[in-house]
């Protein structure tokens, strides 16, 4: 029984291309041009899912984004799994594999059905809160099973092989929706010369025209669609984006579009030649004007058992027949409140199947389509509605009765009509989701029985999106809006009525208001009348919620879950509000709407992440010497975005050194011979101008007035709160010329800080700052043999009297112009060689050519940390945390309180709090046990025997094993530490042990500083 419901002709499918696909493990056939939904209906599949809460069988209801039931898990392989795909929006391709999302272990018989029965058939709103929340500790257990059996889809457990990306778009006009209004607006705007983007979520553009029975220019409407698309496609200023959903409307007309580029072709993006295609793409559109041409969603009527498979919305019936050549049943009953819905019966009849009756809620329907139905001899039952569907896995009949909508009661005898399909239409709701994303509240209009978008700057609705429904009006409205938005972006253009296509005006009668259909029994006792099929919200549930005191529609939503999750209330929200309004005896506008939120339909994480993943997740910044480090086996450490060598493990006797071994060897090499560090990542800022020196004096705590050209000075920089923010050396290159260095991580922040103060506070100072971090490569040669090594490759006089500690000189190193700075972060004799980065590798390699006889040892950041800590030299951000003043660090020598200008932070350092003597102060810690290396971050107490919670008086900021000293040592901040030298402190650890340490000077090696002066 293949494709039992497929018509032999008609529709926009390609019958010459058969496609095989699998649903819930069974194979079926469809055609190219089908959606998964149309192919399932063609094959007579009634049950596509189990419902979320009650586990009832569910079938396909709609033909577009509003489909609540046919939500599937897609993907043949584990890596290709995609959850929560609407079958109505998924193009069919060869090999497509889909499963029902709900209903574990399977859709026919499942666990939740049992739960439903055990707990009775009555699961009120708040069921999960009431039933499963206690005891709270077990919720985690319940949740796992509830999600598995009733939850939504699952994510893949294997890496996704596809690539995704983002693209930035700019345009004058973004038009969302390529139905009659969108096409008409696009054409008018594009013809005026505006840059236009037209996007549409469906497999092909055309919207309602794809299943319309109306004529444009005396020809089928799709011919006009083709003509318009042809013209738009030929324009340089127009971008057409089919299969692209506008998901989110953000502030300032920033709209995100989700384009599915290859989802209709295969599980994974195909390769064209050797070129792998991008699977989906997120367009980040910045539009001057947005046109909302999203049309309207049909509202189903809310009657008893309206969720049994075989209940569809009327428009979907027409769409399946006219677009896909599929009649989803044999005998139809249509329950309607308006003329437009009659299309379903006419299309059904023309497809050669039986229309049992049209049940119209109006007294005296009149209009062209009503006349047509009458002339075909179709039975029309007026002032009535389907009050209940019969059947279990498929509709078997419709109970029809005369109703009184105003009194909300059944007013006549019930007649049961045998049928297998019930189509219903309670009117149309403009698709206003995007406008609501901005926070704008929609407005109710009684004349169209629907909400229209509220005012949003830069957004104009067109056509059905604001309740304009007759086709000729829609096309004219689209053209008017196209002209208006073109003028809004500054294009001088006028409406041209003669350019509009000819559409015969159709006479439609007035629709009537009907949402929930009354039943003979009260709502609470009647069979379930579903409002939100995806979240299993019933009319009784809403009634109960209002009875339990939830009066705000936002509270009703949260209590019942109406319009939650991926559904976002497309089919059910207005009906739900109408029911709440009835129960609360208010009008619909008084009840108001809930807020629709992005995303309109689910977006894959791939599209959200784009290209920002794996090795492109974050920039990796490399120095000019990176290749050498890689080739010499360096382990790397992330410092900001930089990759810095951490240590260089050697392989000794076939065994690779541990980090501890490598660092010990590197430390000793520097203390005893000579080591070399790539220090290129330090921030460097070139400062020029007659007021450069004055400026330095204002941003540093110490004095700069007398620093002579050729000299270097260490400086501390505070924020205005007096807390240390950065440190580094600054060299005087010329009277008006300085080179500032910053910490690696602080470089960009310091430059911004300097610019901020210059531009906002001291614009009168003549000074400019420029980053030269990347221009210079810096290599630190340090250790007792540093001078001997450098002398072999430089023309600079390295004599200790000529080139003193804290001097800088220029000359060449290895034939390359270089500035060499005698500054030391290790406490040893040290030269920092700066050369233009393009020549750094040559200089570095030349140093190694000459360095062999001195055992020149490359070292990384870990050794650098140990060596500087042995000297008590701080690292900003490790030994400080934004709450440490220069005085806390014991650096009074670097503070110029008597400088003439009040430098940044000076005032804060005179506050009573910063003057306290019991502030946490920077000290050294020597563990009593020489084998102990304290934990960084460990808390310090004075009395280990006090009761918990103990009074914590400080913490360890840096801690290492010192190969030179042969014991562990640490830097720390301790309350009043400067006055507590020699005292013992205690460090209680998580495992119960308590370490003892003595407070000592933070300078552990060479306290007099003789080694760096040699």
């Amino acid at each position, binding site marked *: 029984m293949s494709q039992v419901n497929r018509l032999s002709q008609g529709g926009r499918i390609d019958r010459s291309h058969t496609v095989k696909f699998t649903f819930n493990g069974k194979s079926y056939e469809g055609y190219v041009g089908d959606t998964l939904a149309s192919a399932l209906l063609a094959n007579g599949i009634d049950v596509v899912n189990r419902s979320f809460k009650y586990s009832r069988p569910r079938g396909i209801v709609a033909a577009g984004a509003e489909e609540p039931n046919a939500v599937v898990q897609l993907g043949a392989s584990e890596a290709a799994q995609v959850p929560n795909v609407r079958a109505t929006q998924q193009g069919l391709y060869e090999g497509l594999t889909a499963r029902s999302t709900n209903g574990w272990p399977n859709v026919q018989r499942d666990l939740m059905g049992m739960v439903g029965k055990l707990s009775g058939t009555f699961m009120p709103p708040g069921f999960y809160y009431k039933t499963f929340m206690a005891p709270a500790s077990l919720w985690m257990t319940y949740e796992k099973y509830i999600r598995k059996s009733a939850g939504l889809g699952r994510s893949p457990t294997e890496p996704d092989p596809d690539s995704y990306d983002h693209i930035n778009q700019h345009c004058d006009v973004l038009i969302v929706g390529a139905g009659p209004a969108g096409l008409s607006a696009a054409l008018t705007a594009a013809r005026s010369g505006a840059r236009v983007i037209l996007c549409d979520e469906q497999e092909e553009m055309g919207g309602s025209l794809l299943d319309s029975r109306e004529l444009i220019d005396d020809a089928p409407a799709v011919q006009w669609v083709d003509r318009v698309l042809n013209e738009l496609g030929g324009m340089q200023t127009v971008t057409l984006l089919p299969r692209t959903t506008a998901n989110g409307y953000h502030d300032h007309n920033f709209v995100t579009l989700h384009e599915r580029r290859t989802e209709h072709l295969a599980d994974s993006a195909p390769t064209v030649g*050797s070129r792998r295609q991008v699977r989906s793409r997120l367009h980040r559109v910045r539009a001057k004007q947005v046109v909302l041409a999203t049309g309207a969603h049909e509202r189903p009527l809310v009657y008893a058992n309206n969720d049994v498979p075989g209940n569809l919305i009327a428009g979907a019936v027409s769409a399946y027949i006219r677009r896909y050549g599929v009649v989803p049943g044999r005998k139809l009953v249509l329950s309607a409140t308006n003329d437009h819905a009659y299309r379903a019966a006419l299309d059904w009849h023309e497809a050669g199947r039986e229309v049992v009756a049209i049940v119209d809620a109006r007294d005296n329907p009149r209009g062209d389509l009503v006349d047509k139905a009458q002339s075909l001899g179709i039975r029309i039952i007026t002032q009535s509605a389907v009050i209940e569907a019969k059947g279990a896995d498929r509709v078997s009949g419709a109970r029809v009765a005369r109703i009184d909508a105003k009194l909300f009661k059944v007013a006549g005898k019930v007649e049961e009509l045998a049928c297998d399909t019930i189509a219903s239409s309670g009117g149309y709701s403009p698709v206003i989701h995007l406008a609501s994303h901005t926070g704008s509240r929609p407005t109710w209009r009684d004349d169209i029985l629907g909400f229209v978008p509220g005012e949003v700057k830069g957004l104009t609705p067109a056509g059905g999106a604001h309740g304009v429904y007759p086709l000729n009006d829609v096309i004219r409205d689209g053209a008017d809006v196209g002209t208006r938005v073109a003028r809004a972006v500054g294009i001088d253009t006028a409406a041209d009525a003669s350019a509009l296509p000819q559409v015969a005006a159709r006479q439609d009668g007035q629709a009537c208001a009907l949402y929930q259909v009354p039943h003979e029994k009260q709502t609470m006792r009647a069979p379930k009348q579903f409002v939100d099929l995806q979240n299993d919200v019933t009319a009784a549930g809403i009634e109960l919620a209002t009875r339990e005191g939830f009066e705000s529609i936002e509270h009703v939503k949260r209590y019942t879950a109406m319009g939650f999750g991926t559904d976002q209330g497309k089919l059910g929200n207005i009906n739900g509000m109408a029911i709440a309004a009835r129960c609360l005896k208010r009008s619909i506008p008084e009840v108001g709407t809930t807020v629709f939120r992005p995303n309109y339909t689910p977006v894959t994480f791939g599209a959200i992440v784009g290209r920002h993943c794996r090795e492109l997740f974050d*920039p990796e910044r490399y120095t000019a010497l990176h*290749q050498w480090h890689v080739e010499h086996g360096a382990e790397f450490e992330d410092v900001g975005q930089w990759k810095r060598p951490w240590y260089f493990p050697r392989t000794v006797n076939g065994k690779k050194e541990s980090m501890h071994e490598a660092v010990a060897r590197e430390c000793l090499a520097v203390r005893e011979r000579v080591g070399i560090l790539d220090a290129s990542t330090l921030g460097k800022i*070139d400062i020029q101008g007659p007021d450069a020196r004055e400026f330095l004096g204002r941003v540093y705590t110490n004095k700069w007035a007398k620093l002579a050209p050729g000299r270097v000075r260490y400086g501390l920089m505070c924020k205005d709160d007096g807390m240390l923010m950065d440190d580094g050396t600054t060299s005087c290159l010329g009277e*008006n*010329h300085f080179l500032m260095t910053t910490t690696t991580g602080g470089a960009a922040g310091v430059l911004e800080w300097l610019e901020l103060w210059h531009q906002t506070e001291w614009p009168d100072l003549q000074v400019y700052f420029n980053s030269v971090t990347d*221009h210079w490569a810096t290599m630190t040669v340090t250790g007792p043999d540093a001078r001997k090594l450098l002398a072999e490759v430089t023309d600079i006089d390295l004599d200790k009297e000529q080139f003193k500690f804290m001097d800088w000189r220029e000359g060449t190193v290895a034939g390359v112009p270089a500035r060499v700075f005698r500054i030391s972060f290790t406490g040893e004799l040290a030269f920092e060689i700066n050369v233009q980065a393009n020549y750094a590798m040559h200089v570095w390699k030349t140093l190694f050519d000459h360095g062999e006889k001195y055992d020149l040892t490359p070292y990384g950041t870990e050794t650098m940390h140990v060596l500087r800590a042995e000297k008590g030299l701080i690292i900003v951000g490790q030994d400080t945390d934004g709450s440490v003043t220069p005085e806390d660090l014991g650096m009074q020598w670097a503070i110029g309180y008597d400088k003439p200008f009040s430098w940044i932070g000076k005032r804060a350092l005179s506050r009573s709090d910063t003057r306290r003597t019991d502030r946490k102060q920077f000290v050294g810690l020597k563990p009593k046990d020489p084998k102990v290396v304290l934990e960084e971050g460990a808390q310090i107490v004075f009395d280990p025997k006090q009761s918990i919670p103990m009074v914590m008086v400080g913490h360890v900021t840096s801690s290492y094993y010192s190969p030179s000293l042969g014991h562990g040592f640490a830097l720390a901040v301790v309350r009043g530490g400067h006055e507590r030298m020699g005292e013992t402190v205690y460090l209680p650890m998580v495992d119960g042990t308590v370490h003892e340490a003595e407070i000592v000077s933070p300078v552990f090696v060479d306290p007099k500083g003789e080694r760096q002066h040699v």
Partner: protein
Amino acid sequence: MSDVREFNTRPSGSPGAESPLAWSFQRQGTPPREARPGVTLREKAFLGHLILRGGAIVLDEAVRETLGLALPARPNALVQDAAGERSIQWLAPDEWLVIVPGGEEFTLESQLRQVLGQAHCSIVNVSGGQTVLTLRGENARDVLMKSTPYDVHPQAFPVGKGVSTVFAKASVVLRRPAEDTWELVIRRSFADYCYRWLLDAAAEYGVIVER
């Protein structure tokens, strides 16, 4: 301005130089040749890059005299000599980027300082810190759209425009020196990231790297 220390960082001999992309070319290699690549990349390495900061009027006189080019006064404007070898680009109200053939930058800096005399300005050589990458091909603009939020439509980004902007998660100077050519001025330390990003983003169009 003798109070500023001039320093020629380019060696007179010819020790091996490595451009910011040397390691990327070595590690990543270049993509295989394609008959009809949608995007073609090429590095213009070892050029002279100077950042000029100061008042527009004095700098304009100085660059006219030394370089024979007018200082672009309009924001985001780019001027070049006839051969396209020397260019000046507006970066900020008091900041311009000058790019000249490699080796000319120090002479130009000295000449500029002489002409400028005691006028307050700054001239900074950043030749080692950045490199130029050109993008050509029918999909060059698509790749840029994937990478930068700036509007690169020909209507919004005509020839002779240049901007500082975001590029993926880095920042670049983006300019359009000719109808079919885009240039990215990228910082040395971000060069590898930008290169890998470009190859990845251009893969669907076919990409080659000219060396």
